[in-house]
């Protein structure tokens, strides 16, 4: 074995040890990040809250007098919320990107190279050196994976306290939307009672239609409430799972425990997203 080959072998041993220490499949982290981003990627619930006054004004009172319920200017609060949601979404995207494994896989090429060299009757190029060079390139990607995993862990640990505070704030805001929605629902219910009272006695068709409209409205408000509840549940789940990642990616053992739990949250996050989009589809 030449001096070059001995050096190469030692280098490979070091690189291999580095790689074995840090690499793991972080696809669960990527999926969690992507689903979380899909929850925080929409500010439509906040926009709905902002537009409460406008929405109520469109409901005609008996005698076509619009409902005037000033809410104060909600533009600033909505814009700030929109920024927070966008920030959390960007964070999740960056975390997902950092947990990505998109490095080139050159192992197959190296194997091919070895086969080609072995098939040759004679060549001026030192086959062992070419082959060893290929192996080094192949292994270089592994410590880079380890570095990437280390940086994912560092990012999660550093960002967690701030993310927790922001998610708690978004949950508090959702509580405000929920309280507002309950108020809006009562206004519409009282308005409908007045409308029904104004219906001439004996007009059963109008009475039937009004009651059906009221029942339909009631169902829509329930859907929106459920969407908001699902949003809050999703925010809590994101906060809890992100917190679990702070120590959950430290060793192979903790990774093996944490990643399945993360996958288990997948169904709940998808369900929450569906409920949210159903809530936003309701037109009142």
């Amino acid at each position, binding site marked *: 074995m030449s001096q070059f080959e001995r050096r190469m072998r030692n280098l490979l041993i070091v690189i291999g040890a580095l790689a074995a220490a840090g690499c793991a499949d972080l696809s669960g982290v990527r999926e969690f990040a992507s689903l979380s981003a899909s929850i925080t990627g929409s500010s439509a619930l906040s926009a709905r809250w902002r537009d409460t006054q406008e929405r109520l004004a469109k409901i005609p009172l008996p005698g076509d007098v619009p409902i005037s319920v000033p809410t104060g200017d909600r533009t600033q609060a909505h814009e700030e919320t929109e920024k927070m949601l966008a920030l959390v979404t960007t964070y999740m995207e960056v975390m997902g990107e950092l947990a990505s494994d998109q490095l080139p896989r050159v192992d197959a090429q190296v194997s091919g190279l070895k086969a080609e060299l072995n098939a040759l009757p004679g060549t001026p190029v030192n086959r062992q050196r*070419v082959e060893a060079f290929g192996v080094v390139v192949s292994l270089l990607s592994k410590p880079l994976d380890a570095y990437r995993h280390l940086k994912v862990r560092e990012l999660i640990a550093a960002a967690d306290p701030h993310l927790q505070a922001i998610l708690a704030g978004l949950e508090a805001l959702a509580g405000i939307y929920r309280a507002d929605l309950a108020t809006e629902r009562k*206004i519409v219910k009282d308005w409908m009672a007045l409308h029904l009272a104004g219906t001439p006695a004996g007009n059963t068709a109008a009475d039937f239609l009004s009651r059906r409209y009221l029942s339909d409205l009631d169902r829509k408000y329930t859907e929106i409430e459920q969407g908001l509840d699902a949003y809050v549940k999703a925010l809590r789940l994101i906060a809890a799972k992100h917190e679990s990642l702070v120590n959950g990616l430290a060793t192979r053992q903790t990774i093996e425990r944490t990643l399945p739990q993360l996958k288990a949250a997948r169904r709940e996050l998808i369900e929450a997203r569906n409920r949210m989009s159903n809530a936003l589809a309701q037109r009142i």
Partner: protein
Amino acid sequence: MTTRADAADLLEQAKAFDEAADALSPKVNDAGTPLEDRKKLFQQSLSLRSEAFKLRTQAAENTTKELSVEVAALKAEIERAKKVLGSIAKVKAVIDVGTSLTKLAAAIATGQPAGIASALSALKTDVDRVQHG
């Protein structure tokens, strides 16, 4: 600087206005009360509900303001992570050059002109990528 307690106070006040409006609701819905009186009561309830809305608007504003420090801190972490991603991209590009070099070496070893030309072309692309970030 506002605090979460300020927002909580505002929400409590909003709740009180809502409860006052709720107290009017049975009369608005009472068929025995003349319609005009019911309409007046409804308008009164709207005024109370409006106060509740405004207080919650203020509470939401306070909540977002309170988080400005956390927002700035998370932004800084994101920027740091983006720099790491940039470094990884550079290393990845260097690995790509290494991969192309391996292919070129293989092509030279096998002595096929077409293979050498193709490997050289791939190498040039990867080197350009490294040079131009």
